C-alpha cells in the first residue's frame, strides 16, 4: 500500500532530522515543561459568576439567574419571552426542569430535518469558564444529567439555544475547565462562546451565522 510506504518514509525522515540523542524520555521532558501561567482561581464563586455574566453579555448572549428549585419557572419565563414552541431536549435531561405548559421534543435519534423543524433546544452545561464567557458542552455518560448537553447536532441545528448552567459547574480559568473535562477527554467536547458570529466582511462583527443565532444562559445558584 502507498499509505504504508509514505508512513514509513515520513517517520524515518522525522527521526533522522531529530537524530541528536535525547537526554530525557518524552514523558519526563513533557512533565518538565514550564507552566507558570495562571491555573487556579483567585476569586470566590459569586465573583466568578458575575464575571461569567459580564463576559456572556459581552458576546451578546442573554443572561438570566434563578434560585435552585425555581429552574422550571425560570425556563418557562425565558421560553415565553423568546416565543419558542417546539423545544428540543436531550433524552437524559433532568425532567424536573421542564415546565408543564410547553411541549418538549425529546431527541430520539431525530433526523437533520426533524432537528431543523424545532425552533430551539434546551440543554445543561458541563463546565462554564468565567474569564472567557465560554460554555463547555459534553455528553459523556459519567456526567450528571444537569451537566449533559446532548449529541452535538442538538445544539447546532436549531436557531435558538437555552443553556442551563449550575453554579457548581462554573470555573474561572481555561486550565480549570480542562481539568474538569479530563475524565471525558475521549468524548466530543464543544466550547461555545456566545452565538455564532463572523467578522469576515470589513471586520464588522455580525451575530448569528450558521450555528444558533440566539443564545440564552440561565445560571442556577
Amino acid at each position, binding site marked *: 500500500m502507498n499509505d504504508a510506504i509514505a508512513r514509513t518514509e515520513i517517520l524515518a525522515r522525522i527521526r533522522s532530522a531529530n537524530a541528536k540523542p535525547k537526554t530525557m524520555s*518524552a514523558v519526563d521532558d513533557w512533565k518538565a515543561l514550564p507552566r507558570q501561567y495562571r491555573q487556579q482561581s483567585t476569586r470566590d464563586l459569586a465573583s466568578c459568576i458575575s464575571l461569567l455574566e459580564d463576559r456572556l453579555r459581552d458576546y451578546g448572549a442573554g443572561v438570566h439567574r434563578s434560585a435552585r428549585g425555581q429552574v422550571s419557572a425560570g425556563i418557562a419565563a425565558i421560553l415565553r419571552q423568546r416565543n419558542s414552541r417546539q423545544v428540543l431536549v436531550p433524552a437524559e435531561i433532568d425532567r424536573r426542569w421542564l415546565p408543564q405548559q410547553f411541549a418538549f421534543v425529546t431527541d430520539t435519534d431525530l433526523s437533520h430535518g426533524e432537528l431543523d423543524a424545532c425552533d430551539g433546544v434546551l440543554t445543561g452545561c458541563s463546565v462554564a469558564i468565567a474569564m*472567557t464567557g465560554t460554555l463547555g458542552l459534553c455528553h459523556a455518560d459519567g456526567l450528571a444529567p444537569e451537566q449533559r448537553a446532548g449529541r*452535538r447536532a442538538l445544539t447546532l441545528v436549531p436557531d435558538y439555544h437555552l443553556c442551563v448552567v449550575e453554579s457548581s459547574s462554573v470555573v474561572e480559568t481555561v486550565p480549570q475547565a480542562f481539568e474538569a473535562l479530563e475524565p471525558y477527554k475521549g468524548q466530543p467536547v464543544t*466550547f461555545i462562546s456566545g*452565538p455564532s458570529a463572523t467578522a469576515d466582511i470589513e471586520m464588522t462583527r*455580525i451575530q448569528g451565522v450558521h450555528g444558533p443565532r440566539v443564545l440564552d444562559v440561565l445560571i442556577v445558584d
Partner: protein
Amino acid sequence: MAAPNSAADFPSAALPLLRNVQLRDNVRHATDVIQRKRSRVVGEMPDWEMLRDSAQRIREHTMEYLADYLEQFEQNCTAAGGQVHWARNAEEANRIVIKLAQNATASVIKIKSMTTEEIGLNRALEAAGIQPVETDLAELIVQQSHDRPSHIVVPALHINRHQVRDLFARTMNLTQLTDRAEDLTEAARAYLRQKFLQTPVAISGANFLVAETGGVCIVESEGNGRMCLTLPRTLIAIAGIDKVVPRFRDLEVMLQILPRSATGERMNPYNSIWTGVHPGDGPQEFHIVLLDNRRTEILRDADARETLHCIRCGACQNACPVYLQTGGHAYNSVYAGPIGAILTPQLALMREGQSLPYASSLCGACYEVCPVKINIPEVLIHLRGRIVQQQPQLQRTFGLEAIAMRFAQWLFLSEARLRLAQWIGRMAQKLFIGNSGWIEKLPGMLGGWTRTRDLRPMPPQSFRAWFEKRSESSTVRNQGKYE
C-alpha cells in the same frame, strides 16, 4: 502549491498592489481593527508572557519527539474508529481524498483550511468531477470571485462589502441584496443551509491533533465548521504533521493564545474536539490525512525548524509594516506576511519564493506578537544566507555586489574618504531632488530603492560637522561651569 517559478517576485508583484488605493484601504482597515482588539484582550492577561513561554516550549518539545507523537496519535485515533492516512506530498494527499470522496458524493462541503489551499485540493477535486463548496463566509467570497485568500485568518480582508454585494447578487441571483454586512451574512446562511443538511461528505483541516487521545480540534466562529464536523456521514480531515500537541491539557494553553492572537477575542465562538467516530453522534466514518509536503525538510534545518511551531493565528501579518502596505497577494503564496516569508520558500525547498525573505525590514514586530515566540527576523536572516549561498554569482570575487561591498568597506575605513563621499553625494543629489523635497527617482541600480518609495535627501550638514562646530563653542562654556 506554493508560487510557481514563473510567478513575479515580491517587489514586482507589490507594485500594482501599492497603486490600488481601494485594496490598501481595505487591508489597513481590517488589520487596524484586529490589532486594536488583540492588544486589548492580550493586555488584560497578566500571565500572557508565561503562556507564550509555555506555548513555545510545548511546540519545541513536540517537534523533538514528533515521530513518537504522530505514532501515538495514529494508534489512539485508530482505536477510536478513525482511519489514519499518510501523504508525503500534495499529490498523494489529493489522491487519497479524491479516492475517499469519489464514490460517495458529487459535491463536498469544506471548512476553511490553509493546508487544503497549500495542496491545491479544490482544483484537484474539480478535476475529478467533485464540486467543493467553501462554507466559511470569507472563503465562500474568495471561491465565488475566483480570487485567492490574502490573509490566514480573514482570507477576504481585501474585499469590501460593496464588492461582496455585487458578487453575491450575481452568483446567488439576489438582485435586491443590500450591502449591509447583516444582509450579506444572511444571504450566505440561506445559500448554505440545505447544503449543510444534505451533503454526505465534508472536508476539513485541523488546528490541533492530540496525540494522547487521538482527538482533533477545530477552532472557528460561524458554526460552518460544526455543521461540517457534525452533520455529514463522512468527514475527511487534512492536517500537516506539525499540528500535533502531546496531551489534551496542552490545549488549555493553545486555546488561550490562539483566539486572542488571531481575532482579538477572549475565546472564539466555537471550538470542537472529537476523537475518531462517536456512535450516534456525528460522522460515522472519519479519515485523517497526515501531510508531510516538505515539513520534514524544514525540521532538518536547526536554524529554521521553529517555522513549524506556527499555529496559523495571523498576528504577524496584522503587525507587519510591509504586509500592511501590500496586502497578502504580493507574496504570491498561500501563506502571506512574515510567516509566509519564511514558510513559503522552505515548503518549496528554497527553489521558489526567494524574494520573500527580503520582503521585511527586520523590525521584529512579528516576533513581538507571535504567541509561540517564533523568532521570525532571525529565520529571515538565516534564509537570506541560504539564498545567497545558492547563488554563486553573489559570491564571486568580481561579482557586482561583491565589488560594491568591498568599495563600501574601503570608503568607511577612512574618515577623509567618507567626508569626500558625503560631499560628492550632497552635490550629486541636487540633480534628483523633486519639487516635494524628496528624491523620487534614482538612475541605474540605485533606482531599485526609489521604485516603490521616496528617499529623503542627505541633510546639508553631517552629524560630524555639526558636532565639531558645536563643541568649539560649548567647550568654552563647559569649562567655566565645571572647573
